[in-house]
């Protein structure tokens, strides 16, 4: 793998950049792999990467129906934070956030992790108590967050209206080391690194069946032929249900549409990520200058990657109220993605009834920020059969009533 650096760019410039090699190979599938990961999104590629890096398992194929990074990895609002309330969530998201800190260097690919700080506004007494609770929990979980005053909020976000007529800002939960990253780059960086380890990323290859022998997975059928494997990881947000069906089990998931939008680009005016859950809006400004805005989810099953406009309306009016100066900006583009929702809105990282087959899904609206931690834990689970990071997210929690409910702290899982 050719090393990326300013020097390399300068060197290639002299040859008019005709010397760059492929970021990742595009191989035909081999007959057999130790591990097959279905789904070349962030979570799938990260799982493969850490299998290789942490456990030396490099005979791995990542199979992708479409193009790598083409699902929710490339459709989200790129927020990275770990100020979650419940221990298991805080653990996996903080692991992810920590890995994001060094990911550019680790992958030798600039994923532009920008620890600009994430702020969750408290606009009711109930929210104040909720976020102060989170702040206390985070302190014990090793997650650095703090409760800040409205004045500090205004200092950090000059464009915010802290004394709006309806919901004045009463304070905020502030995670200084939260931020954003360039979402596509995360998938591309992992893909390049996996490919460099000799792993095969097989795009435009759809899995049509999961082959098993006496209760154990032995391979998959694909549009590019049958491929054998020891272990199988299903990491296909939005389509987990279909894959599980092929593998002969069911998942407590529903697929719904989540929407987002961006404004036209303007010069930098907001250096942090702000989430206002009482009014259902959150916003950050990308390095391109676009205001990146997350919308709500539909309440019904939907595979169209299109949502209903009224969710956009609710979000935008909330943000115009919170940041009056965006009133005359314009919405450039809106889009939707398909997310898997579980009964407690927390993900599933788990063994399955089919031996050797593992599932990573149900990230709902919050998957991007978890990618490195999810890959790390999933790799550990698949390689060793156990991971403290994923343990609480197992499938059986629903039967036992052992939920991981994040909504309780007025926090929504963006």
């Amino acid at each position, binding site marked *: 793998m050719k090393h990326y650096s300013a020097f390399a760019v300068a060197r290639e410039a002299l040859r008019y950049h005709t010397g760059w090699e492929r970021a990742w190979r595009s191989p035909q599938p081999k007959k057999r792999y130790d591990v097959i990961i279905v789904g070349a999104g962030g979570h799938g590629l990260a799982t493969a990467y850490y299998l290789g890096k942490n456990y030396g398992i490099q005979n791995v194929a990542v199979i992708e129906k479409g193009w790598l990074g083409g699902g929710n990895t490339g459709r989200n609002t790129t927020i990275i934070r770990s100020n979650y309330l419940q221990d298991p969530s805080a653990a996996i998201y903080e692991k992810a956030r920590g890995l994001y800190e060094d990911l550019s260097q680790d992958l030798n690919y600039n994923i532009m992790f920008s620890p600009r700080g994430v702020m969750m506004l408290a606009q009711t*007494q109930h929210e104040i108590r909720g976020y102060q609770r989170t702040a*206390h929990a985070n302190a014990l979980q090793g997650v650095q967050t703090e409760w800040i005053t409205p004045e500090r909020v205004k200092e950090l976000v000059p464009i915010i209206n802290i004394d709006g007529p309806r919901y004045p800002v009463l304070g905020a939960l502030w995670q200084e080391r939260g931020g954003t990253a360039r979402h596509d780059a995360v998938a591309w960086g992992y893909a390049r690194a996996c490919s460099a380890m000799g792993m095969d990323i097989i795009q435009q290859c759809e899995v049509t069946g999961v082959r098993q022998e006496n209760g154990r997975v032995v391979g998959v059928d694909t549009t590019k032929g049958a491929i054998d494997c020891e272990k199988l990881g299903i990491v296909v947000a939005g389509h987990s249900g279909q894959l599980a069906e092929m593998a002969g089990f069911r998942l407590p998931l529903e697929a719904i549409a989540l929407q987002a939008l961006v404004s036209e680009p303007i010069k930098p005016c907001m250096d942090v990520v702000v989430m206002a859950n009482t009014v259902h809006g959150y916003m950050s400004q990308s390095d391109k200058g676009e205001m990146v805005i997350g919308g709500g989810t539909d309440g019904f099953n939907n595979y169209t990657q299109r949502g209903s406009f009224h969710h956009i309306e609710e979000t935008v009016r909330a943000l115009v109220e919170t940041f009056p100066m965006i009133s005359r900006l314009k919405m450039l583009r809106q889009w939707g993605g398909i997310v898997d929702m579980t009964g407690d809105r927390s993900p599933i990282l788990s063994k399955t009834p089919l031996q050797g087959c593992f599932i990573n899904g149900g990230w709902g609206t919050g998957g991007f920020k978890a990618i490195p931690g999810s890959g790390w834990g999933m790799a550990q689970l698949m390689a060793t059969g156990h991971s403290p990071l994923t343990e609480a997210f197992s499938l059986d929690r629903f039967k036992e009533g052992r939920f991981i409910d994040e909504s309780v702290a007025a926090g929504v899982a963006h």
Partner: protein
Amino acid sequence: MSTRLAKQGRLIDRSKQVTFTFNGTSMQGYEGDTLASALLANDQMMMGRSFKYHRPRGVVASGAEEPNALVGLGQGNRFEPNQRATTTELFNGLTSASQNHWPNLEFDIGAVNKHLSRFLPAGFYYKMFIHPKPFWKHVYEPFIRQSAGLGKAPDKDSRDADTYEHFYAFTDILVIGGGIAGLQAAKAAAQSGAKVMLIEQTAHWGGRAPVDGGTVDGQPVDKFVEQLVSELETMDNVTMRSRCMGAGVYDHGYVLGYERLTDHKPGAQGPRHRLWRIRAKQIVTATGAIERPLSFAGNDVPGVMLASAMRDYVVNWGVTPGDRVIVATNNDDAYRTAIILKQAGVDILRVVDARATAGPLAEEARQLGIRVDPGKAIAKVKGGKRVKKVALCNQDGIGGAREEIECDAVAMSGGWSPVVHMWSHCGGKLLWDEANAHFHPDPERPPLGANGEGFVVAAGAANGAMPLQDVLFDAQTAGEAASNAAGFTPVTADAPKGADVAEAPMEPVWLMPANADIQLRMKSWLDFQNDVKVSDVQLAAREGYESVEHTKRYTTLGMATDQGKLSNINGLAILADALDSEIPKVGTTTFRPPYTPISMASIGGEARGDVFQPIRQTPMHNWHDKNGADWEPVGHWRRTYAYVRPGESVHDAVNREVKNTRENLGLLDASTLGKLIVKGPDAGKFLDMMYTNMMSTLKVGKCRYGLMCSENGFLIDDGVVARIDEDTWLCHTTTGGAERIHGHMEEWLQTEWWDWKVYVANVTEQYAQVAVVGPNARKVLEKLGGMDLSKEALPFMEWRDGKIGDFDCRAYRISFSGELSYELAVPASQGQAFWDALTEAGKEFGVMPYGTECLHILRAEKGFIMIGDETDGTVIPQDLGLHWALSKKKEDYLGKRAHSRTHMADPERWKLVGLETVDGSVIPDGAYAVGEGVNANGQRNMIGRVTSTYYSANLGKGIAMGLIKHGPDRMGEIVEFPGTDGKSYKAKIVDPIFFDKDGEKQNV
């Protein structure tokens, strides 16, 4: 130079001069000008800077597709960045400023990037700025952000001076686009009797056809348009809106129309924008086509313009972008520009036609003395801030053997692409047309509506029909098809006969010259705003970013404010070539709404300021407001947190209210508590399912505190239930619980037990409810007179109807404070009068109103739980020691089954206890109790948490409730709560009832 011509300009009124400013310079234009045409008339060729390299940018188009001429419009509370000069109607006093440069447009420091461009290819930032790590956040990123961005950000304190609104419209057929295709389709559809709505984004009808010439039924196109418009205006089943853009097509035939009402006359009465929510059975997209640029070196120099745009400026606004013009093309249409400009007196130095042979229009051009060079190409345009020279070469070559010609403008035409956005928003599929080298809608695969049938029909150029006669024929057909699909009988008629010069076939030319070397390719722009060049797309392909989505995201092709209207097809073609594939195989990126950007404010509509969200008010709301209420939003309600007196802090006020209520008399506005009437022969049975306790056995005249759980076993609500008569109960819910619990009850009644005879009605707002609380409660009520409220006549946990003073009243003898307390319900219309009477009569008894915080403290002193504090959606009654409220007699109730799951029955669950700090301090809200060691993820082990914590003015110390592991078995033990303030709080586990354990105060 670019100048105003003596003649021409069908859209301007030369008798009406308009004054405006650009970058502070005052300029003149005419009514009917766009900002772009007016700037050109003032020889302002350079209008902005590009995004990445800060290269000089001039206007390249004449409409919505413009990527370059973006300005900051207006000032202060009416400032708007990134406004397209080409779609901005000129008005007197308009102020505009160019963007993305410092210190100014002419001299821009950022332009240094231009010279570094060789070192800044597509995706360079993924490969650089990796080391040293801290530099990204502190050095690289701030620099990149500063030089990126585009328009100036509005002032941080600006407040939009305008208002906005929505409008819900319903029509059988919606026609999007008011060009000749839209007009004709609308007529054809309307003749079936269908209700037709026709929307057009500009202020004019007829689109570009009047500029392109030709005749319809033997008369000039603009005459035809005039007649058609007036004909449609007389049809009362037709609604026409100009300045109204079709912004997006959504599922089930839902369309957003973006109407700009006062942008062209700021400050005028009424809303600025109106966002139409249009429900249509069928949609006709007559959105026309957009001309493609040609990819040659220097095609981004100001003065290089789309051929169609150049003739628009001449014909519509009487402006020529240059005196000495070269036309480059791969099709016949561009000859119209040459001819029109020539006839307007502009020097046409050359028509450079990449093809070997051209059609009759070329002949016509030659007749006018224009030199036509077949097989030729532009090797390079020279010039910085405007075109100076053009170097010509053979199309089939690498760009050598050049001939240089001095000129000041270049018109280019790479062929036309139908505007398929509206067709595609909801999943309409496209077909590749080899002959015209464009995608057009595939009639076999339209977007599908609620009935599974197609609900969009494309018409005219938007459908790939280019020649005038085809456009009209296609439009007629589309209009008839749409009316038919909408359930009407089309009146079939012949389309008007369009006549225009026949055209020779175009030839796809994706690069000029065909084998341009790398130096030229690095100067051949695809995306003018984002500075994406042919070489960038080729680099992306080489590096394996093969999917069109990858290439788009890696190079930012098509991600600018024009969303690739000019660049997508050209980029796609270059990518396909680089991948040695075919364009349709590579496919297009997804088309997403809106068609062009729409204002955030229009999306929010009326919902701003006062009416951003409803504020629900009790009958006494205004009194509270006048009497120092510190408001707390609870759902959409506003409740008084505390009544703050002059000179008091909120905290002081709370303490005063707490003491006074315990010692004298307090009044609480409890009107927000939900009140649901549940009536019927099966009402008792039903409530036994809804509540964990037994309600069917409650005696008439009595009250009982009830708990509600979800099927999942978690507490969702609580409240006092009163039995009114044999088959009627009244259920109180929490504030804001009324609608939720009413819905919850209706859901079970309608979808599970629909055979049960029960009716529910929400009577919450019928009553103003006042809690009269404290030792003097009975005294004040007796003073008002009326019903007997003695201990004997109205015992604890009972209710009576009667009169208090002259108010009809239902009195509940219940207490959430542990004090002698009555909750009194009177008709809402008399709530204020009743409150006044109590306040007046209460004076001698030391009456004071109290708010929600006082209420919380009073109940906490008594160890009463509060839904939302002790519960958070994960707590079950057993956690709170409420076993007494879980009926053992009942076989079933919602939540019962869930409680038997292993984790619910787990003895390790945290349980409710009281907490008393050893030093009397107040444990911080939300604090957790810590145990020994850390868990497998290195997190400190927690053994519990605080759920409610207050300073009790009565007890003079901090009190709290919390959930603690094995709590009830650990009475007297000390647990530790680390605060986020650096302190650690030690608290003793105690009984949660801190005050009047035996309840003597309430039983008097």
